C-alpha cells in the first residue's frame, strides 16, 4: 500500500515536524554527540549535556545542577528566615507595622542590584566562584542576626542577607555552561523553581528550630537568634561544597583552562540597547513583578497573617505559610509546561493567553484570600493563589526566550530584577502602613495583580500576532528571520554576527502553532482523489 504514491501511509506530511520545545533530552540526530568525550551523559561538541538525568550526582553536569539549585535554595531560606519568626521578633525588638514592612521591602531590594552585578562577576571569576563568593560572604550577615537589638539593625541585616538572592544568576549561568541550549529551558526552570521553594521551606524550618531550641530551655528572645545559626551554617557548608566539588566547565575550571570561545563576543552596549528599546521587555518586567514579586511579598507576610488573623500557634502558621512557597516544586514547571502545551496548537497566542489566565487567576484568589474569614477557605484560596502566581512565573519564562535572541541574557536579568522591584513595591504599598489591615492589603494586591496583568494584551509579534490580533499582513515583516535579524545593523549582518539568530528564527517557527507549514510533500506524489 505504502509504495503507491499518494495512498494512505505514503504522505510525508509531518515527518520532519518541528523539534519539541520542552524536552528531557535532545534527539541525537538534531545535535551531534561528541563520542570521544567520556562523560556520564551524552554531550555535544562543547561537552554540554544533552540529557537531564534528575536523580544522578554524576560529575560534572548533574552534580553542578544539584550544587547550584541547593545553593540558591539556601539563600532563599536565609532571606525569608525572619518571616515566620516575626511574631517573636516584633516583641523582642519592639517593632511597629511599618518597621516590619520596611524590613520586608529591604529584604528583596538588595538583590535588584546584586543580580545585575553577578553577571559580570560570573564572567570574570566563573560561576563556581561567583556562587561561592556570594554565599560565603553573606554567611556573616546571617550570623549578624544575633546582634540585632533595634528596628534599624533588623532592617539593615535583612537588607544585607537579601543580596544573596543573586545566586539566581550564578545558578542559571552555571547551568548554561553545563547543559545544551535545547534543554536549558527545562533545566533552568527546574533549578529556579526548586530554589524558590526555599521561601516555603523556611516557613517550616525556622518555627521548628525555634520550638526545638525553646524546649532545651531557651527564652523566646534568645531562641530565635540561635535559630538563625542554622541557615548561616548551611551557607558555609554549601559554599565549601561548591568550591570543592564543583567545576566551572564540563572540562575543568576556568583558571586552569584556556577557553577559546566559538561565539563572537558581542558589545554590551548594543545588547543593552536592543533589550531596552524593545517595548515587550518592559511589559514583561512589569508582569514578572506581579507574579514573582507577589510571591516574594507573600512569603514575607503570610505566616504572620495566619498567626494573627486566625490565632494559630507559630508552627501551625508556619506550616500553612510553607505550603505557599513549596507549591513551587510543581507549580512553576507546570506553568512552563502549560505554556509549551498551548503553543503546540495555538503558538505564541496560546502562550500569551496561558500567561494571562494563570496570572489573573492568581490575582483573583489573592483578592479572595484577603476576604476569607474562615481558616479552611483562606488556606484553599491561598493554595490556588500560589499555583496561579508560580505557574505564571514559569509561563513568563516560556515567552522570554522569544522576545530577543541577541539580548536574551540582559532581558532575563531585567525581568528578574523587575520581580524583586515588584515585591518591594507591593510590600511598601500594602503591608507597611497601619492604614489598612494585612487582609485588606492582600485584597488590594489581588486587584493590582489583575490590573497589571492586562498589558500582556499589548504584546504583539509581527510574525505571530498577539492575544487578539493576527500576525501582520506584510509578508516581509511577518517572518521570524526578519524579526530576529532586525536586531543587527547591516554592517553587523555583513560580519555574519546574526547567524545564530537566524538559526534560532528557524526553530522558533514552532510558535506559529498548528499553522506551522510542515515540510513540502514530495513532488511526485499525487492525491488519491483529485
Amino acid at each position: 500500500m505504502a509504495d503507491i504514491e499518494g495512498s494512505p501511509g505514503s504522505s510525508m506530511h509531518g515527518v520532519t515536524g518541528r523539534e519539541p520545545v520542552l524536552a528531557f533530552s535532545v534527539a541525537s540526530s538534531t545535535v551531534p554527540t561528541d563520542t570521544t568525550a567520556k562523560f556520564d551523559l551524552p554531550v555535544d561538541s562543547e561537552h554540554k549535556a544533552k540529557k537531564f538525568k534528575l536523580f544522578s550526582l554524576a560529575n560534572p553536569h548533574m552534580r553542578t545542577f544539584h550544587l547550584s539549585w541547593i545553593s540558591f535554595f539556601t539563600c532563599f531560606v536565609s532571606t525569608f528566615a525572619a518571616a515566620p519568626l516575626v511574631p517573636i521578633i516584633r516583641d523582642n525588638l519592639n517593632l511597629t507595622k511599618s518597621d516590619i514592612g520596611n524590613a520586608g521591602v529591604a529584604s528583596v531590594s538588595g538583590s535588584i542590584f546584586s543580580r545585575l552585578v553577578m553577571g559580570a562577576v560570573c564572567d570574570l571569576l566563573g560561576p563556581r566562584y561567583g556562587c561561592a563568593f556570594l554565599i560565603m560572604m553573606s554567611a556573616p550577615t546571617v550570623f549578624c542576626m544575633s546582634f540585632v537589638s533595634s528596628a534599624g539593625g533588623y532592617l539593615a541585616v535583612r537588607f544585607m542577607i537579601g543580596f544573596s538572592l543573586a545566586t539566581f544568576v550564578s545558578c542559571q549561568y552555571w547551568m548554561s555552561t553545563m547543559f545544551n541550549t535545547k534543554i536549558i529551558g527545562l533545566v533552568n526552570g527546574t533549578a529556579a523553581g526548586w530554589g524558590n521553594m526555599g521561601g516555603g521551606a523556611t516557613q517550616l524550618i525556622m518555627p521548628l528550630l525555634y520550638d526545638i531550641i525553646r524546649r532545651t530551655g531557651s527564652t523566646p528572645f534568645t531562641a530565635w537568634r540561635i535559630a538563625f545559626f542554622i541557615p548561616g551554617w548551611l551557607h558555609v557548608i554549601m559554599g565549601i561544597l561548591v568550591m570543592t566539588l564543583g567545576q566551572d566547565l564540563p572540562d575543568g575550571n576556568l583558571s586552569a583552562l584556556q577557553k577559546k570561545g566559538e561565539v563572537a563576543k558581542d558589545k554590551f552596549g548594543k545588547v543593552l540597547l536592543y533589550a531596552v528599546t524593545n517595548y515587550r521587555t518592559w511589559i514583561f518586567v512589569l508582569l514578572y513583578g506581579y507574579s514573582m514579586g507577589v510571591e516574594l511579598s507573600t512569603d514575607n507576610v503570610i505566616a504572620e497573617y495566619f498567626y494573627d488573623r486566625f490565632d494559630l500557634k507559630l508552627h501551625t502558621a508556619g506550616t500553612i505559610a510553607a505550603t505557599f512557597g513549596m507549591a513551587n516544586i510543581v507549580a512553576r514547571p507546570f506553568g512552563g509546561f502549560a505554556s509549551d502545551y498551548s503553543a503546540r496548537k495555538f503558538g505564541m497566542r496560546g502562550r500569551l493567553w496561558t500567561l494571562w489566565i494563570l496570572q489573573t487567576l492568581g490575582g483573583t484568589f489573592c483578592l479572595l484570600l484577603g476576604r476569607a474569614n474562615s481558616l479552611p477557605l483562606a488556606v484553599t484560596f491561598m493554595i490556588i493563589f500560589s499555583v496561579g502566581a508560580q505557574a505564571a512565573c514559569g509561563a513568563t519564562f516560556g515567552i522570554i526566550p522569544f522576545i530577543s535572541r541577541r539580548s536574551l541574557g540582559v532581558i532575563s536579568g531585567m525581568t528578574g530584577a523587575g520581580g524583586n522591584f515588584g515585591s518591594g513595591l507591593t510590600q511598601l504599598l500594602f503591608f507597611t502602613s497601619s492604614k489598612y489591615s494585612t487582609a485588606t492589603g492582600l485584597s488590594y494586591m489581588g486587584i493590582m495583580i489583575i490590573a497589571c496583568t492586562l498589558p500582556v494584551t499589548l504584546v504583539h509579534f509581527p510574525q505571530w500576532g498577539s492575544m487578539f490580533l493576527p500576525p501582520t499582513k506584510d509578508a516581509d515583516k511577518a517572518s521570524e528571520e526578519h524579526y530576529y535579524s532586525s536586531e543587527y545593523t547591516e554592517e553587523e549582518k555583513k560580519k555574519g554576527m546574526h547567524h545564530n539568530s537566524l538559526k534560532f528564527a528557524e526553530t522558533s517557527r514552532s510558535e506559529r502553532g498548528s499553522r506551522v507549514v510542515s515540510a513540502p510533500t514530495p513532488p511526485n506524489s499525487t492525491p488519491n482523489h483529485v
Partner: protein
Amino acid sequence: MAIQGSIVASILLSYLVAACYGATFSSLQNTLVVTASPQAGQVLKGGEDNITVTWSLNNTFPAGTDSDYKTVKIKLCYAPISQQDRAWRKTEEELKRDKTCQHKIVAKPYSPSTNTFTWTVQRDVPTATYFIRAYVHNSADKEVAFGQTTDSHKATNLFEVQAISGRHVSLDIASVCFSAFSVVALFGFFFLEKRKAKASQKS
C-alpha cells in the same frame, strides 16, 4: 397559651444568642478594686523585678453581686501607646478577639476579701507600657466582671517594662567565629587554587 409559649421561646432564643455571642467588654461590670506595686511611670526590668497585685471586691456594690464569681484571672495589658501601629495588640469589644491583655500573671479562685500575689516579670514580656487588669469568670468560665489599675481611658497609673535583649555574649562570640571562618575559608581556597593553577602552568 400561645403567648406563654412565645415568651418562653424568646427567652430561650435570647439565652442562646447571648451564649453564642462572645461576651463584650462593655457588658462587664467594674466591680473589683485592683492595685499594683509599680508606681506610675516606673520602669521594671524583665526577668528581674517583681509586681505585687492586690485585688478585692468593691464594697459599694450591692450584696449578691458576686454570687456567680468563681475565678479571677490577672493579666498584664498593653496601654494604648503600645498598641499604636501594632494591630496584633488591638483592643476589640468582643473579648474572644480582644488582644489587649496577652500576658497571664495568675489565676486564683475568687474570694471577696483582699488577695495579693507577687509575680516576677517574665523574660518573654516585651518592652512596652502596661497596666494590670483582673477578669472575673463564672463557673462556665465566661467573663462576668473586671477590675483594673488604670482609669476607663487607660491613661493613668501606667508603668513600663524594659525587656531582656535576648542577646548573649556567648552567642555574639560564636557569631563572630563562624563569620570569620567563612571568610577565611573562602579566601583560603581561592588563593590556594590560584597558586596551584600557577604551579601547574609553570611545570
